């Protein structure tokens, strides 16, 4: 068995205490929630923090609720679903999120994505905050120390060459989380708490195109909350490409969300693709194609083709990049058909 490096484990009871510990201990401290990403990475020697600051006692970061609108009932919805946004604590487990009635109702793509992360045991431990902050992944990076030594290491850790591009000075490790594509499609807003207070950041602005470190979260910051606006007429869907029906990280991750007007035409539509490069890609030009339509087959086809032209997977994952690219329009088409209400597309995943 691989050994976990030794570390000091801190269990603060409040967010303020946790932030204090992080600030006080400096870069040698790393926050940990479910640990499903960090622990294997530590066993691989990718991180060797002297201190782990556990967030699991911070109750303020737990729970999911519908908020805003003061419980005004709309469209005959039950009270527990009525509101203007979903507020999700960053410690909410992926299993709870996937099963939450309000999330399934208002942000189905987010619930689907959460329910497709890894396998059941990992979803019981893994949190939405951890999934959003998941480290990027690469065939040359997520390996043991011995393996990386035999390789000669890589740009992301201990080396100076990217074995994927072989020329670049830029790390192209793949953003491999499921939920961010769905959160971006839903215009989610993330709250980061730091020593000098909290700040809000659109999920779409949270990621940067750098495989070594692909988020704007500072070392001393903690992702505390995810807010998803509740928009009448919004529908969404998530699709995940993977070879097994469980456990695997996405080979391609795709979320779509559209706001439908009263006449069932599209007011606005978003597509987000990930597991290609270091950050999720918000597809451009979709509104120009689909706004005002009812997602007729030729519109779906045009959107899917538009998606394909914007996606160029790399060999950062061990599965055929050309095939992964060819799957972009297929998965876009399937997700869009689900939005358009085609019953044959029910159920996410391959």
């Amino acid at each position, binding site marked *: 068995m*691989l050994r976990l490096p030794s570390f000091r484990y801190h269990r603060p009871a409040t967010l303020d205490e946790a932030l204090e510990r992080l600030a006080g201990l400096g870069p040698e401290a790393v926050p940990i929630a479910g640990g499903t990403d960090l622990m294997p990475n530590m066993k691989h020697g990718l991180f060797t923090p002297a201190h782990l600051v556990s967030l699991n006692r911070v109750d303020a970061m737990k729970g999911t609720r519908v908020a805003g609108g003061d419980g005004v009932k709309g469209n005959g919805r039950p009270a527990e679903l009525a509101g203007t946004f979903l507020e999700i604590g960053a410690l909410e487990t992926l299993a709870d999120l996937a099963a939450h009635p309000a999330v399934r109702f208002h942000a189905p793509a987010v619930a689907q994505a959460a329910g497709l992360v890894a396998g059941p045991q990992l979803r019981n431990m893994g949190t939405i905050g951890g999934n959003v902050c998941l480290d990027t992944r690469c065939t040359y990076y997520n390996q*043991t120390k011995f*393996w990386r030594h035999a*390789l*000669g290491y890589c740009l992301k850790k201990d080396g100076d060459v990217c074995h994927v591009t072989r020329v670049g000075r830029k790390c192209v490790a793949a953003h491999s989380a499921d939920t961010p594509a769905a959160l971006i499609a839903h215009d989610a807003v993330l709250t980061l708490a730091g020593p000098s207070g909290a700040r809000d950041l659109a999920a779409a602005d949270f990621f940067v195109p750098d495989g070594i470190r692909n988020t704007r979260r500072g070392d001393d910051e903690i992702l505390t909350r995810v807010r998803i606006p509740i928009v009448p007429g919004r529908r969404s869907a998530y699709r995940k490409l993977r070879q097994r029906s469980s456990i695997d990280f996405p080979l391609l991750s795709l979320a779509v969300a559209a706001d439908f007007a009263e006449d069932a035409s599209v007011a606005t539509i978003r597509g987000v693709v990930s597991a290609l490069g270091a950050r999720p890609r918000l597809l451009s030009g979709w509104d120009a194609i689909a706004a005002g339509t009812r997602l007729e087959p030729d519109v779906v086809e045009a959107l899917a083709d538009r998606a394909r032209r914007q996606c160029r997977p790399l060999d950062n994952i*061990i599965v*055929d990049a050309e*095939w992964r690219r060819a799957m972009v329009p297929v998965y876009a088409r399937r997700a869009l058909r689900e939005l358009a209400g085609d019953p044959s597309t029910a159920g996410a995943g391959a």
Partner: protein
Amino acid sequence: MTGRNEGFGAGNGAAPAANGRRDVTSGASPLNTIGRPMRKVDGLAKATGRARYTDDIALPGMLHGKILRSPHPHARIVSIDTSRAEALEGVHGVVTGRDMPTPYGIIPWTPDEHPLCVDKVRYIGDGVAAVAAVDEDTAIAALDLIDVAYEELPEYFDPHEAIAAPSGPYIHEPRKPGWSGNVTKVVKLEFGDVDAGFDEADVIAEHDYFFEGTTHTPIEPHCAIGLAEGDGKVTVWSATQVPHYLHRELARVLEVDPAKVRVIQPPVGGAFGGKSEPFDLEFCVAKLSMLTGRPVKILYTREEVFYAHRGRHPFHMRYRTGATSDGMLTSVDARIVLDGGAYASFGLVTTYYSGQLLTAPYQMPAYRFHSTRAYTNKPACGPKRGHGSVQPRFAFEVQLDRIAELLEIDPIELRRRNFIGANTRTVNELRVTSNGFLECLAEVERASDWKRKHRRLPFGRGVGVAGSTYISGTNYPIYPNEMPQSGIQLQVDRSGRVAIFSGASEIGQGVDSMVAYVVAEELGVPLDHIRVLAGDTDFTPVDLGAYSSRVTFMLGNACLQAARKLKAMVQGAVAEEWEAKPREVLLAGGMALRAGDTGTGMPLREAFNLAEAKFGTLGATGSYNTPKDVHGSYRGGTIGASPAYSFTAHVAEVEVDTETGFVTVDKIWIAHDCGRALNPVLVAGQMEGSAYMGFAEALMEEHIFKSADEGRAGLHNAPSLLDYRIPTSLDTPALESLIVESIDPEGPYGAKEAGEGPLHPSIPAIANAIYDAVGVRMDSLPFSPPRVWRALQAADGGKVSGRIGEAVGAGHAV
């Protein structure tokens, strides 16, 4: 995808087939235990977590070892300096290859390994030095302090390039002057007139196939503990499936009197052929214990399990198959290159098996094969479930499907027409006795509703069939000797408890249970009065190990012999008491009973006591040795000879998503002739497990390595269970086991093997089903979504939509 495991009993045909055959046993009484579904004797302990595997054992004062591994695929070791490691606090001992210079190999003719490399390393992961320290972290830290200087050598990763190398430095020293040190073995054999056979053929199919390497992925990593004691005795606990061979090699390599070596095999958490020879850690724990005087444990990481490997060889195959217009085979010609990796392992046998095991269940008038095993700078390949014959079986059963297609003959009918029969000899002179292959075909044809499905399902959905045969052990042991292949010893207590001392290796397949069933059947002892004490060379007779599907047949016969000796004593003593004939004494249900006299009986305990009073301490031994006169009369003709052969047929039903290339296997019907199912639940379990493993290799598994363009040539692509993908329960198809019982004349109660044979047809049945579904031939494994997608793209510019039609050049009329 959804997983539906219907398991044994769900509407399958096993029960009628089994019951129909049961009365056939000539003159024997009805069976009370054999043939009935029963628990495994170790099932509860394993299911409840109470079984103690090797890593669960902790001895007082135990040290932990780690092995330093080579980061180079092929390099000369210039120097090793261990002084800094030895100076580290907490380190108790360091050994290198020079401490154990005697070479070994599981096959006595190819001893090309050392416990730790002596002069050079041959793959990334080859062991170079080992450390024993107070804990694992210290041992790991010590590895970083061992300084090794390497001089890199030319590397070979492609077997064809390795074979073609005109001169050294080779991967190994040539065994004879003028030979290549990159070749383990070449086998060329020809039976009948192959060229004339092709002249007689009306159609010939000639195609190339590639079987990618796969590995065993046992859930328990290899683990061993060594304990050297002051009196010179060395004990090794190991997760092995061959305690006897390990015993021999430990004694030889460590230069210890074999009478002072003891091997203990605790419960093993999966092996599948991956633990059937000695490994570096077993020698290292023993040597480090001898050096430090303390017990030493080494547990492999998952990554090390991938480097230890000994999995299925990648095979590059070309098959030429001729048939007459009515589908009768006329000739078969095969050329095979085996990619062996860095060491020989069982490779000499694998090279023979690649050709020898193809000659049933179909009649071949003429057959030729030419197989060459190359060394390459990758982890060594060896035996994995269905050793050496799964790869050719894939190619050959697809060949048959092509011939059936060319001739417009139903593929099941084509197989039926070529059936070799029972009590016959194959073209390469293997003796076949019982043979239930026709019933296997009939069962899968019926259960799958084949006639309404084949070539009749909507586009994207299809069915495929394949057949196979496998050995029930080998007639000749790995090292030549005249002694029995299996032995067993029974001992009876005055309480009525019977102890079975078994040298065989329980690796999950149920051998400990099997011997208990035999004893229960013969002596009438309740199962909970039987203790199976196994896997300890100090107190069990020799059994050669859990490999080549030999154990039920061989140990079962040995156990039957011992139990019947004991039974005769008990019958004799009770008969004397009752003034009856011994054969009138029946032992059943915990009682001794008098035939035809329901009023006379006594508890078995009393019967045993009478026998002990009459004969003295009660015990019996039994042994089994193979027939030595049934094999081919040519060099190599002993390899492939088995006392009995099992037969299997599968039908697979698949759905292909033509947009993505995903293949969903909805169901596999598995019909297997196991001779007699001693416990039908365990037989069905072996059939399902085999079909699952074949399905996994068909769709997902790839034991592959990076190229120079991918960072580092020879570096394992993904040595983890995250990226080396084996199917989850959600991916697994519904599996229906259809047990066929041919009642073998020499097997125990007529039993033959069931652990490996049922794997073979999975892969070609799925390949043939994909063809039925979308008209595309998958001749290279695995049939992963990207490969199927590419094949569909290539077939018709991505616009496949029609059914079936052989691609140009796929076969030709003569």
